[in-house]
């Protein structure tokens, strides 16, 4: 293995087979978002009201809490991949690019954890309506 040019360093190693992973995950999560967010919108329309009691009583139902958690994971996964592409296009400075990826990961994981925790708390302590 040479250590001169870029091609010299990777020649003979074969494909890493990781090239399409980001692209595919973006599409898998897109389908997840399509199904789950549409389900949320239809559910919001169908709810008798969007007041505290109606919403908490609805989320407390296990058949609501589980898809809602999956929706949060799918949304934050998808937005992490999408915002990564946007930042890679516009943030050219190496240091700032590193910092933006760090903050993006904090945001995506933090947001997803907050969303899932909120749903879990309602589901474990709430009364199903």
């Amino acid at each position, binding site marked *: 293995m040479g250590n001169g040019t870029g091609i010299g360093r990777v020649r003979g190693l074969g494909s890493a087979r990781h090239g399409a992973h980001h692209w595919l995950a973006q599409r898998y999560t*897109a389908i997840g978002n399509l199904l789950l967010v549409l389900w949320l919108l239809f559910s919001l329309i169908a709810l008798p009201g969007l007041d*505290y009691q109606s919403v908490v009583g609805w989320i407390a139902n296990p058949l609501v809490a589980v898809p809602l958690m999956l929706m*949060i994971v799918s*949304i934050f996964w998808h937005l992490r991949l999408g915002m990564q592409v946007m930042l890679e296009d516009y943030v050219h400075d190496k240091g700032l690019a590193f910092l933006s990826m760090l903050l993006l990961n904090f945001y995506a994981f933090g947001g997803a954890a907050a969303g899932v925790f909120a749903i879990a*708390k309602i589901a474990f302590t709430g009364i199903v309506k």
Partner: protein
Amino acid sequence: MARTTSRPLSPHLTIWKWGPAMAVSIMHRVTGNGLATAGALGLVWWLMAAASGPEAYATFVTCATSPIGYLVMAGLSWFFFQHLCSGLRHFVLDMGAGYELKNNKLWSVLTFVLSTSLTIAFWAAICTGKF
């Protein structure tokens, strides 16, 4: 990196005639990042408020049903439907279909028509409580 200034750069944004395909492309990025920031934060705020109790939920409802709140929610709903429609268009393009000039232009325009119609239908359903 040194560049020979006598050679032309490849044509960029300023030189192309603006078209629907370009509009739908940049709007996919704008709506996606709008939803990723304001949309996701709003969603988590709503869930956190519901998990924190009636008072926190009342604060959320007060903000969400203020004039600015409605404007943000209306904007985000259009962003969602526009991102959904242009995302579905991407699935078709991924399969290698829909690149004929006329078809491509037609579906670019239709994403805007569909997303606007869906947004109006969604709010009509919310306001009447039926779908």
